């Protein structure tokens, strides 16, 4: 998988890793941060609702790459009889935004975007486990995204 951020534009003033670290510490002080050069890894707990589990997540970010979100504990579960968890890249990496869209830009703070989305993701994950329905919306790679989808592409797909 390519982790370069398609939205990364060196001319645009991306937040530096120091800015990200300071901002994370201010907003989510319970996250531990490890840093090396322009890379940072944060590990901390998120709990979407008082009845929810607390999830240990690891956020990896390098300026110029996309931020990545890994669930470290507890291991994500599938529903009985199914082998997939919605909106995940792998067994423990979750996808909280649409790559290539403007939802995430390197000018933004992780604490303002990735972290809230992750907490919301866990909320939908738990209600999905309980009901079988993902109520949080989203899109899938095979379906392409509405904003990329051109009319010709749509009619081609409809023809199939």
């Amino acid at each position, binding site marked *: 998988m390519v982790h370069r951020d398609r939205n990364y534009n060196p001319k645009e003033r991306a937040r530096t890793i120091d800015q990200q670290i300071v901002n994370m510490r201010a907003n989510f002080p319970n996250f531990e941060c490890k840093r090396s050069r322009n890379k940072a890894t944060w590990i901390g707990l998120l709990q979407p609702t008082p009845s929810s589990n607390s999830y240990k997540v690891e956020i990896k970010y390098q300026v110029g790459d996309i931020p990545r979100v890994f669930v470290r504990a507890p291991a994500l579960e599938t529903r009985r009889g199914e082998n997939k968890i919605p*909106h995940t890249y792998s067994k423990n990496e979750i996808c909280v935004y649409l790559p290539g869209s403007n939802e995430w830009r390197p000018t933004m703070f992780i604490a303002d975007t990735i972290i809230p989305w992750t*907490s919301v993701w866990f909320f939908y994950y738990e209600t999905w486990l309980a009901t079988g329905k993902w109520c949080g919306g989203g899109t899938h790679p095979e379906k392409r995204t509405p904003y990329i989808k051109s009319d010709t592409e749509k009619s081609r797909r409809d023809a199939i």
Partner: protein
Amino acid sequence: MSITMLRKATSRRFPSSATQQLDDLLYQICDKLQLSQTQFKLAEERYKVVGDWLSKEDSPLYRYLPKIYPQGSLKIGTTVKPKGQVEFDLDLVCELKIDHRLITPYQLIMQVWDRITSNETYKSLAELKKRCVRLNYKKEFHLDILPACLDTEMGGTCIRIPNYNKTNNTWNWAASNPKGYAQWFEDKCKFRLVKEEAIEGVDPVPEPEDVDNKPTLKLAVQLIKRWRDIVFENREDIPSIILTTLIAQLYRGESSVSDCLTSILYGIVSMISQSPEPLEVPNPTNQEEDFAEKWQKDPGLYESFCLEISKFKEQWNNMLQLKGIDRKAKVLSRLFGEDIVTSVIEEFAQRISAYRKDDSLYVSKSSGFLTNNKSSQSILVRKNTFYGA
């Protein structure tokens, strides 16, 4: 008569504690179980028309000044939709001003039956049952009309109701006091827990008075009745009146319905374990009547009740310790039914989604709790699209 609706606020607030979150979920379950306001109005309309028919001047019952009024769960606001059945069972009393010594039980019920079936509409709906004349409104409810006359021996609001005895094929009188019972129950609902803070000298913050506030005791009764419907094949095995009475007697004024269930389950299981004989559940408004007569006659029923209620208590207490909406939901599904729990959780998720769509969903700093409270301690959840297979 008034219908007590659920706290409307529960569908709007964001829970700030696990107890509150569970309470909200339980309110929603009760809301789905009970008669809706529309159904309630329809039932009220229907029984008023029946009442008119019975008490019209040309009715043979006219001279007894028949009065129709609701009793049981309809009266006290604890209706629960029977499992796997569309129709609610609603009980009405048709009280006649006549001394029970001046008429036989059979005469009484037949007079009501004859009058009802002399109406073409009711004729096709009516069915004679062992204590009542039932009107079957398909897909709505069964209106059970219990003919009654005054119990002048007991006095007060006591009445006598014809009761068919299958074993010797006879009709006799059953004693009842639905008005007295409803009053007793409503008084129990008003019980308020004296908060510990108050004892320590801190004035408790008074809870805002809300007319839509359904008393916690009523919610607890609905939930335990629902559990009964889920666990026992035949809901008649554990009559609602036994459960309602036990629960009301054990209620200590908790305002949280989950706290209330915890202490009631503890209370019932303790009572059972301390009693060498099957529990007696005397009618609080007529000590001579034991609601749990069934248990003395059929110890098997009592045994299975004891076993199931202990299991309920264990599962409930385990559920309280669990973390995860999904894990709690799994236990709640077992107790109150999967369909209802699933739809309540789905609606909760959809409510959160509505906030998100509306740009009014936030997460609390540090914890990540979702909230609708915009403050320096929360961060807006910006628009995002979950991606990935």
